[in-house]
């Protein structure tokens, strides 16, 4: 009944489409990454570079930067598709709507979360974070950034029809991001202090499982409403 390609085929096509699109706007691919690096470098400039102060700040700065860079790249998720009418075309694709949202969230993560993961160790070294904390930082980022993308998708889907609802988006999404931030930064902090991090990681894992199962449905429903 549904298209020849099937659900997974459509998902693949959509992801390929968005990645290709991102590639065409190379600037945009680098956006979250550059932003991340910039935020992290601004701190030594603004604070003065005392190594022991920086080390204390490192988990907070890194996680706040990751969160901000995820949040700021959210808006682009549907914006251009909405503006040029492609979003209507996507909504008329003979596949469940959550597929679209899932593809978007995945691409967002591939472009904003994954590069962060790769770059974070370098920046962490730069901020004098001890080695064992860096491993934990990576694990928390790996668990936490997909949650940011998924929850973010709900927020953007709700605000896509509104003209540039930047703040609105932040206000919707941020309260839901804070647990991720606290757990993420907390885990790194504990690791740097040589404490156990199991509980923090469990909670992050739970958040991820929750987000993966529920966010696409919620975001799909939101999308259909707000495009009207």
């Amino acid at each position, binding site marked *: 009944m549904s298209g020849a390609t099937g659900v997974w085929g459509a998902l693949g096509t959509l992801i390929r489409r968005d990645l290709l699109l991102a590639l065409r706007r190379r*600037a945009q691919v680098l956006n979250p990454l550059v932003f991340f690096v910039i935020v992290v470098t601004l701190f*030594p*400039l603004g604070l*003065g*570079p005392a190594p022991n102060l920086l080390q204390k700040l490192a988990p907070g700065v890194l996680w706040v930067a990751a969160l901000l860079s995820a949040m700021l790249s959210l808006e682009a998720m549907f914006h251009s598709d909405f503006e040029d009418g492609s979003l209507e075309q996507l909504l008329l694709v003979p596949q469940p709507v959550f597929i679209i949202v899932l593809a978007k969230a995945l691409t967002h993560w591939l472009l904003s979360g994954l590069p962060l993961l790769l770059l974070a160790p370098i920046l962490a070294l730069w901020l004098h974070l001890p080695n064992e904390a860096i491993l934990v930082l990576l694990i928390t980022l790996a668990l936490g950034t997909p949650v940011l993308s998924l929850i973010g998708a709900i927020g953007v889907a709700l605000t896509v029809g509104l003209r540039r609802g930047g703040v609105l988006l932040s206000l919707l999404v941020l309260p839901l991001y804070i647990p991720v931030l606290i757990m993420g930064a907390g885990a790194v902090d504990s690791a740097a202090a040589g404490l156990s991090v199991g509980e923090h990681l469990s909670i992050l894992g739970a958040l991820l499982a929750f987000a993966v199962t529920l966010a696409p449905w919620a975001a799909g429903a939101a999308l259909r409403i707000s495009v009207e």
Partner: protein
Amino acid sequence: MWLWIHKFGSPKYFYSVSGKLLPWVAGATVLLIVMGLYLGLVTSPADYQQRETVRIMYIHVPSAWNSMFIYLLMAVAAAIGLIWNIKLADIVAAVSAPIGASFTFITLVTGSLWGKPMWGTWWEWDARLTSELILLFLYLGYIALQSAFEDRRLAARASAVLAIVGAVNVPIIYYSVQWWNTLHQPQSLGVGMSTIHLSMLWPLLIMALGFKLLYVVILLMRTRAEVLERERNNAWVQELAQALAGRDFFRSGNEYR
């Protein structure tokens, strides 16, 4: 002057003149750099404080000078291109940026390598170091902007504005060691003054001249390539291409027969 700019600004004229110039400049460059390296690394004495580490100077200082000089030259060329619409100036500006960025990068790296043993740190946020880092960012921004436009003319004009605005950074780099008390050492060489002993000064100056010429060589080569690329639809380039193709054909023919 005006006439000269226009004459030299004509791509075809430039191409033929620069073609004749290039081998001479390249030869001089190799000569100077080899000589400078020999004098600097082998015959010149070690410093009374820094010992052998001082030899980093013969790379660091010439590339630092180049990094600033090239930026200024790029900004001037960009301004000329913007105001008088001279294609060659646009090309010179565009082509200079990556070269300048490389010298800036070399300055930063050699400075860091030198800083670790001398100062005890790879990096400090002092005024000289920070402003040099900003110079690298400015180069990168210029290159990025240049490549973001599809239309070459727009790219040249837009990035010219950036190059001109960014030029304020150069005097800041140069005077930073006087204006602020930095970790970086103060000026050793000025107009008519030097606190570097002659035995070290000569190799340094020779290396500096060699690096300047190195820039000129790379600049000429890349500009020539770019001129060909941009003028590929013009008659003189096609003739040139045909001539070259003919020559190749002739040569390969000889080999096979």
